[in-house]
């Protein structure tokens, strides 16, 4: 195992169970008389056993079908939700690109959303104001910066989110199927920026596009049903994943609650 200074993310036997309560009354019962042995909830294990290590400065792609646990894993890395079992170790400031777009306030202007988005990601007001012009230029939404976000197109919102994330000087960047929304010109700009970022930063990249993956990542992890199915060189993993999507049925039973 490499030394801690070199590792950006280390996950060891990560597992995450969501507690599902059938009624709010069950929650109250669990608080008052429940125990782990005889719970009033059902557990849904979104992640079952995930182990991997990402060294600082590497780019890693994450593939897997809907509901395989990708998003849960990313949320754990960001610190939004806690794993139930196992160990997670993350060093550095994390910037989730797509997630930031979800916090946008559609009534507020682009400028206000930059200020709030930056604050959520941990920037001081002073820092955001200093970088504001640069963010506006990167987003390239022009005069719309002073207009409410409800007048933005989907792509424009994505541009704004990416522009903010590109300016928070993150150590770990998480890009979750975000580039697909932008037009070709913006995608190119993002890819150029990400490639520059990769020289020192760590990238977690989620995509269903094999070409995007091999363009931006060196390694990849394939998650299937909450477990690592394959990990290693991006071309091998992406090829294996792509092949499986051709042959394996879309099994709807995988969302069953244990």
């Amino acid at each position, binding site marked *: 195992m490499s030394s801690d*200074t070199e590792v950006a993310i280390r996950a060891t036997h990560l597992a995450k169970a*969501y*507690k599902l*309560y059938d009624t*709010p009354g069950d*929650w*109250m019962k669990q608080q008052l008389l429940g125990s782990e042995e005889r719970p009033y909830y059902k557990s849904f294990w979104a992640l079952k056993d995930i182990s991997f290590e990402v060294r*600082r400065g590497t780019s890693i792609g994450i593939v897997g079908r809907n509901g395989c646990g990708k998003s849960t894993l990313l949320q754990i890395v*960001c*610190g*939004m*939700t*806690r*794993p*139930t*079992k*196992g*160990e*997670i*170790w*993350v*060093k*550095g*400031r*994390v910037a*989730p690109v797509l*997630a*930031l777009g*979800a*916090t946008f*306030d559609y*009534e*507020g202007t682009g400028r*206000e959303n930059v*200020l*709030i988005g930056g*604050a*959520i*990601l941990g*920037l*001081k*007001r002073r820092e955001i104001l200093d*970088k504001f012009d*640069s963010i506006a230029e*990167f987003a390239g939404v022009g005069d719309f910066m002073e207009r409410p976000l409800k007048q933005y197109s989907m792509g424009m919102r994505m541009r704004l989110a990416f522009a903010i994330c*590109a*300016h928070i*000087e993150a*150590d770990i960047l998480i890009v979750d199927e975000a580039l697909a929304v932008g037009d070709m010109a913006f995608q190119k700009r993002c890819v150029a*920026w990400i490639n*520059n*970022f990769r*020289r*020192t*930063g760590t990238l977690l990249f989620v995509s269903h596009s094999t070409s995007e993956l091999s363009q931006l990542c060196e390694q990849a992890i394939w998650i299937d049903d909450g477990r690592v199915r394959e990990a290693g060189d991006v071309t091998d993993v992406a090829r294996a994943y792509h092949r499986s999507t051709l042959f394996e049925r879309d099994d709807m039973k995988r969302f069953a609650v244990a």
Partner: protein
Amino acid sequence: MTNVNDRQQLPDAPVMHILDGKTVEARDYNWLERAIRFLFRPFAEAWHHRDLIAAILRRELRERFSGSMAGWVWAVVAPLISLVTYTIVFGGSAKLPNKADSSSSLDYALFVFGGLVAFNFFTEMAYRAPSLLHEYSHYIKQTMFPAEMLPIISTLRATTYATIGLALMLLCQLLFVGWLHWTVLLLPLWFIPFLGFLIGITWLLSAMGAFTRDTAYLMGTIAPVLMFATPVFYSHETLSPNMKLLMYANVLTGFIEIIRDLVVFGKVSDGLVIAWTMFISMFFFWFGYWFFRRQQNAIADVI
């Protein structure tokens, strides 16, 4: 564009380390250190997130008035109208406890208004708290948003209205009575513990509200009843000694008594009342914080 290569980073970069659902601390703390860290933590965190608190507070205040033409005028007109109403309705018919002769109707209006400023502040928080985390669910689910700051933000927002009410009350006293008691200078000492109490209540109610909508219905049911169980329109001084003692079980009684003593009667309340009220304030503040933190991990998953 930021040049990534210019950065010197990582030696002091933040580390997140979680083992079996528990945060791993850099070192072990003994119980005394843990207690002290717990007591200081709400303040340390609020200070750490001060820019975020300010940014969201600014947006919330703008939101409140952006759709209306008169904006801030409403915030002043509403309490003013209630003050005038109480003066007219209760004028002459009511007696103040400390003044044997029937005092001026304005005195009584100020007396009621003092109670209302505190009580309305409380109900605004109590009504909103259960749905507070649902309102911000997209923040809590999608980003590393510190949800424990939301009760602080919404209490600060409500503070602006309470401050307007309080300022109006002092202004009326100054205009119609002609002078203020020196004790109004002590108002900040009342305000800060009251804020602490309300933030604590909001921590408690919002965490419960995240799991069950019943919290909202419960507050909607008991808040109007509470208005009559709280000495807003009357004085608990006029009750029998046993009933009077019972009134202090209502956590709001002490706060209302103190603000009236300071503004309307110009005296400092009984030491025992102050001590009891301070205890309530601190108890709810830290208990609410403890409860919220305990539920926090589950909140992100259910909201």
